[in-house]
């Protein structure tokens, strides 16, 4: 990044947009959809129309949600607009005018009612622990601990992503460090609501999580989900001074540096997929790569084209709730690029990316395995 992107309000930034199309050239959804209305500059123009009172139909306004919030547009914006923030504000404006897409609105409703985006019984949040062969003694469920693992909706309820939570718990168990979960009291972090333009509705969820965290008084909260971590950093941190908010890979890499993790060995070739919310928006690039490099026998392959290295898988920004077929198209494309490196497996560090890429691999008929870094490490323990 050449400078810090700015945001001086939706109307001002919409006027600052130069319509130069730098954003268009890197936007994953535009490259799949192809219409100007789906380019970032087109969406800026749509947001401007909304502000000016131009009547838009729900399908026209939905274009503002045809975006994964991957943030690549912000990186290249010629006028330095913080476009990720712009999209969040534009969605807020869209939702306020009752033009939010039905899928996103439904997820908001479910999260508010049940405490999770799927609308499941929130008491089942820690149900995945029942399927583990052995739960480590260092997990103090229902007790206070210095370390809290915030599991997130996806890893709590999605069968594919639950394996990520299991693997992380196993790895923590290896270290002997005592930790706890918020269990059935954990609520959706609020990120899907923020992405739907409904931050106000997320306030109660945030307050509930904050209150619970204060009760536990941990020194650190750790996340396997980069979106949860990002949400906590942007909307919880001020209320939890002194609490470190870390992604699982950051935490594990620190332990690795202290020699507190076991040795790892796995003969395989993998390609690493950078989760947008962890790397571009969250600033965590190195720890997952360093952890992979610490596995003996593991070869980490790289996409040769620099501009394709950090592309989005399609799974972010509530797009799954708005246009699942578009997510599938982006995922297939991403899987093809990553598998094109000759890797046996795609490794990432985000449950949503794992879910999206797994489906993409299946749809593409690609035999490549998709897993989280913590799953690979759990498998590679000696």
């Amino acid at each position, binding site marked *: 990044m050449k400078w810090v992107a700015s945001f001086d309000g939706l109307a001002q930034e919409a*006027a600052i947009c130069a319509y130069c199309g730098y954003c268009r050239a890197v936007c994953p959804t535009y490259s799949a959809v192809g219409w*100007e*209305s789906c380019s970032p500059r087109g969406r800026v123009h749509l947001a401007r129309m909304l502000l000016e009172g131009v009547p838009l139909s729900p399908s026209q306004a939905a274009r503002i949600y045809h975006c994964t919030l991957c943030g690549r547009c912000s990186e290249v914006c010629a006028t330095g607009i913080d476009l990720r923030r712009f999209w969040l504000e534009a969605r807020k404006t869209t939702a306020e005018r009752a033009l939010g897409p039905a899928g996103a609105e439904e997820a908001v409703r479910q999260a508010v009612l049940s405490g999770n985006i799927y609308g499941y019984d929130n008491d089942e949040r820690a149900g995945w622990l029942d399927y583990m062969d052995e739960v480590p003694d260092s997990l103090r469920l229902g007790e206070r601990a210095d370390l809290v693992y915030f599991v997130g909706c996806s890893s709590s309820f999605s069968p594919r992503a639950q394996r990520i939570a299991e693997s992380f718990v196993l790895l923590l168990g290896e270290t002997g460090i005592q930790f706890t979960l918020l269990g059935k009291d954990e609520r959706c972090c609020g990120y899907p609501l923020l992405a739907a333009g409904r931050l106000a509705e997320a306030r109660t969820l945030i307050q509930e999580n904050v209150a619970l965290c204060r009760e536990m008084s941990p020194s650190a909260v750790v996340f396997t989900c980069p979106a949860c971590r990002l949400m906590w950093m942007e909307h919880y941190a001020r209320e939890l001074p002194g609490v470190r908010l870390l992604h699982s890979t950051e935490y594990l890499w620190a332990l690795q540096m202290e020699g507190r993790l076991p040795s790892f060995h796995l003969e395989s070739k993998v390609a690493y997929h950078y989760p947008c919310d962890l790397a571009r928006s969250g600033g965590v690039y190195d720890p997952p790569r360093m952890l992979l490099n610490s596995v003996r026998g593991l070869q980490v392959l790289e996409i040769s084209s620099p501009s394709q290295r950090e592309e989005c898988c399609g799974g972010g920004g509530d797009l799954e709730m708005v246009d699942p077929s578009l997510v599938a198209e982006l995922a297939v494309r991403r899987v093809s690029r990553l598998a094109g490196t000759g890797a046996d497996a795609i490794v990432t560090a985000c449950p949503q990316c794992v879910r999206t890429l797994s489906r993409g691999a299946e749809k593409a008929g690609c035999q490549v395995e998709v897993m989280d870094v913590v799953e690979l490490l759990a498998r590679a323990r000696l």
Partner: protein
Amino acid sequence: MSTIATKVLPPERISTDPIERKLYSRDVAPVPEVITGAFLRTTPDAVVRPGNSEQVAALLREATRARVPVTTRAAASTGFYNTVPVRGGLVLDVNDLRGVVRIDTSRKTVRVLPATTWQELDDALSTYGLATMSYPSSAVSATVGGWISTQGHGIGSLRYGAVADQLVELEVALPDGRLTHVDAKSFPPMGWFTEAEGTLGVITAAELSVRPRPEAESIHLLIFDEGGELADAIRSLARWEPRPFTLTFADPGYFALLSGAGFRTPLDPTQHPYLLLACFQGDPRLVGRARNAVARLHHRELPPEMASEEWGQRLYHLRVKRAGPSLLAAELWMPLSGLAGYLRSVARLSSAVCLPVASYGVAVSQDWAMVMSVYPADERRKLAYLCAIGFTKRLHDLGARNGGRPYGVGLWNTAYLPRLFDRDRLAELRSRKAALDPAGIMNPGKLYGTPLPLRAPLFGPASWALSTLFVASSRRRQ
């Protein structure tokens, strides 16, 4: 109108949605509807997205039969309305013709589709140890086809010439529906299409010469107190052998505007620096001699890390737009012999009218530079913005007095047609148009003639009146 398209394309590649069409009715320069609505139909009747060359050719054949205007569009990253329809019709969005087809490492050529951006192309070439010879200063979004169609001078042109000089062959869809290959010796020759701005056909593929990726690079950031010193340094370095890859420059107004927009500048803008960024690339031994070239100049040089930082931002001049929020501009093709005079005149004008005007540019040959002069405005204040538009003519007039002329024509610069082409040249261009596009469907209303409101009797006085009001309001604000 869309029935023409339905003969060729599936429905999902055609849009008649009013909002969608509206988004295709502009480029980087917002123009108030009070102007466009008066004499133009900038909103297309339909937008079509062909997926391959054959579909492009078939669409042109059908459009010619039905005499429907066709405006080709990829990045739409210019500000002259080259890619905006002025008579409705179809917008041909060619962005699906994107990607590198073939890289020949032994011949050092690349075959590429027209909507590939210059950055994407360079990125693809880098894997093979190759690089583009030149690229536009908007390489992140500007496309291969677009730059070829608009003369293609920019970064690297000083060393390797215009993009036309690097072309081996073009595949072109003609208005009669033929898909043909043209080169320097064919009829029509390739050169017809490199300055036609999409008025003769649609470029559907290009084969370009490329270069080995440079082994070494030496970047220097030089400061001058006077525009004259800057111009002398450019002329001196442009003649140095080995030729610099590029020489880009900016005046004190640029750094003042950049600073006002909240960005860090290499020097305190109150020091009124003229900056020259010189980049030498190629063989390490030859590049090593660059220091000798630079050492001969009377200048101060900033540290290498600052030079690298400026080089890293060479595609980001538009940052100054944050000072706007709108930006109006005159882009000029300027003899290096007139550069000092022009920069001096602009500085004087800027000071006299209390309006920050920023100029920056790039030397594109031993004798010529492209200069962009920009000033802030606010398109949301409609009347004031309308007046502000009139001020561009003053900059064009200063350019003309110093031997310059507008760069690019499109619609808006047809106001300066007599400065751009002499009578014989214009007749020659018109005869090409008549030969290839007798029905006049390709990008009509551009390049060859001036619409009534932009003609001298109206345009001159109107611009003068508007800019006078703009200047008065600018002075009042001060």
